[in-house]
């Protein structure tokens, strides 16, 4: 496996499968995560995201298939390999009886960070905006503060690769956004991030998104690529001053660059899917003019990732 690794991939799997008895948790997972990227692992609860992370961190041994993390099988990790990895667990696992500082200090010690680490820890607390709360007991922190403390503890040894298992679960949208700002900073510092989330909208912040469903990885795409794959192309919204009649819609659907059915929003507004929005807009403007329909608005639509995700899953279920 080591020899087959593509240079620059921090994670690579081939037909990675994990079963628990008769239950298949992860099935034939194939993926590559390039170094320096934010890789979003999106899927509903129970789809196999955490199992995948546990396989990649070496907590679980695969039932079959191959995997490589930082060029090594996690089962063969040495201490020096583990020092390059940071892992944020879904729930808060630090010690409620200890203060923020003591928890961070504990994490630093068990990762073997040198004893002159005060400045580094303070910087981390600044990063997660907890410096003023460093003497608070963890049990007195809010849910969001606990997540930030956990993140700081994950970063304490400056890992190359971060596995963050649902870091934004259960926290408010403002804080979620802040977390993604932190992740962007970490990426800019050269770290690679493997982030699982069930908030589909967060896919927009990732460089690459893997969509997981029922233990299977349905696709890996860029956020835009995901939209295109979900809809089969770009979505263009058109509104006219006149009514768009049935025969108009029929003619539109017969055009070669239009995919699928025309979606009716109202009598005067429709949505169409095209191969490439930039080239299709000019042709469509000409076509509407020829039909003596005055175009009041024509723009490329950006469907929400919730819609994208639902469409992908629906297609998957249909194909099954």
């Amino acid at each position: 496996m080591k020899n087959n690794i593509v240079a620059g991939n921090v994670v690579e799997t081939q037909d990675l499968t994990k079963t628990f008895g008769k239950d298949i948790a992860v099935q034939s997972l194939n993926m590559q995560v390039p170094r320096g990227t934010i890789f979003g692992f999106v899927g509903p609860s129970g789809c196999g995201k955490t199992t995948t992370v546990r396989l990649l961190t070496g907590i679980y041994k695969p039932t079959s298939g191959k995997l490589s993390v930082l060029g090594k099988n996690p089962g063969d990790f040495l201490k020096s390999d583990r020092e390059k990895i940071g892992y944020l667990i879904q729930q808060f696992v630090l010690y409620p009886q200890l203060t923020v500082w003591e928890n961070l200090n504990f994490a630093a010690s068990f990762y073997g960070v040198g004893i002159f680490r005060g400045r580094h820890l303070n910087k981390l607390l600044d990063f997660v905006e907890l410096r003023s709360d460093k003497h608070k007991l963890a049990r007195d922190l809010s849910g969001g503060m606990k997540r930030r403390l956990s993140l700081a503890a994950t970063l304490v040894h400056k890992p190359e690769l971060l596995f963050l298992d649902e870091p934004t679960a259960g926290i408010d949208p403002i804080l979620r956004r802040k977390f993604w700002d932190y992740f962007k900073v970490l990426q800019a510092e050269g770290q690679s991030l493997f982030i699982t989330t069930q908030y589909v909208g967060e896919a927009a912040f990732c460089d690459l998104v893997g969509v997981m469903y029922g233990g299977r990885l349905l696709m890996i795409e860029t956020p835009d690529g995901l939209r295109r794959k979900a809809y089969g192309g770009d979505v263009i919204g058109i509104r006219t001053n006149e009514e768009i009649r049935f025969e108009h819609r029929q003619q539109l659907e017969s055009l070669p660059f239009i995919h699928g059915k025309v979606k009716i929003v109202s009598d005067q507004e429709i949505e169409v899917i095209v191969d490439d929005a930039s080239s299709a807009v000019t042709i469509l403007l000409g076509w509407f003019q020829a039909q003596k329909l005055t175009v009041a608005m024509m723009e490329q639509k950006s469907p929400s990732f919730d819609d994208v995700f639902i469409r992908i899953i629906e297609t998957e279920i249909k194909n099954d």
Partner: protein
Amino acid sequence: MTRFFKFLIRISSFLGKELTEIFRQPKLILTLVLGPFLIMFLFGLAYPDQNRTLKTTFVAADPISFQKEMDVFTKSFNSKTFDYVVESDKEKALAKLALNQTDLVIVVPDVSLETIPNDQQAEFLVYHNEVDPFQIGYIQSIARIYVDEVNRQVLQSATAQEQANSGSLQDNLQTAIVKTQALRQSIPSGDVKTITQVSDLEKNLTDLHEKLTTFRSLTPGNLVSPFSSKVSGLFGGTLTVTMFFAPAVIVLLLQHVSITFASLSIVRETKSGIMELFKVAPITAFETLVGKYVSYLFFEILLAGIITTLAVWLLKISILGHLLDYAFAVVILLFTSLGVGFLISLISETDTQAVQYSMLLLLASIFFSGFFMDLRLMREPITVLAWSLPATYGIRMLQDIMLRGSSVPLLVFLGIAAIGIILFLIDWMLLRKKMES
């Protein structure tokens, strides 16, 4: 940074964490320090150094004359043991016993000293209402001592009577001797045979007279009980109940605290989920275990020091042996007890289960460690169980050091050390399995 330095840093993470968590619970610390001290103090107060006084009801046919006899009797017998009343109605006395208004009912046989020459044995009937085998044993001993004392008193009284009676016999003998002397002088000197016979008779009578003089000069008490005993211990001192139990109480408490702390440690971390983080982090099972051992040992040595200081200073419990021996014994006891605690923690699914195992072990230690039952009374196969408990070794070591002034008994020390090392290895193996699974 060298690997060894990193190893030390990783171990130190647990030292800081565990100690901070403990010291952040002042009530817990207060309980741990004052609890054992108070238990020992109350224990000393609760058990005075004397036998239980038995409220006894004697049933006698003639209570008034028996009361007089008892007044004489209690002067020679340990009167603290008996707090008595005399009744004439046996049924009434037994009813009082059933209601626990009296501890013993002793029915005095309706016989006089005159029955003794008839070769008849009179029987004292002793009734009790105890269920505790130890108390029954105590009552049986007391009854036996009581009857022995009664027998002694009867013999003494009979002897005194016979000494008095022998006065006239001695006078008669004196007269017989004088008459024999006169008879010897009246025999013709040629009759050597008769003179010899009378001289022998005179000699026998004189011997008898002298023996009777000796018999009359001896006190009846020495005649009846010519032997007594005096018991001395090699350690040379007298132990109070508190002093005797202090080493065992210290051992049991230190073992229990160690086991409880350690048994909750890993099971809680497994439950909280941080064990998952340990699995991914560059920390090994060995480092984790050593870190935990060091943390708890540090805290418990401190605790043992405070408890011992309080016991010596406030309860005046002495340590006759060397303090260094005491320290060695305590440290090895704590090390082995921690091993037991971590084993419980590694095999328990929940902290409730861990607490239950710890409590069971405490119970086993109370019953089988020699805490209040001497191990020499135990059946042979069961002693294996006794010697698998750290407390058994701990009690033996501390009793020897504190009460006898001996050094650490080497064989006992090696035994507990071997168990401690084996437990450490098992714990290490189990934790490694847990961190790898």
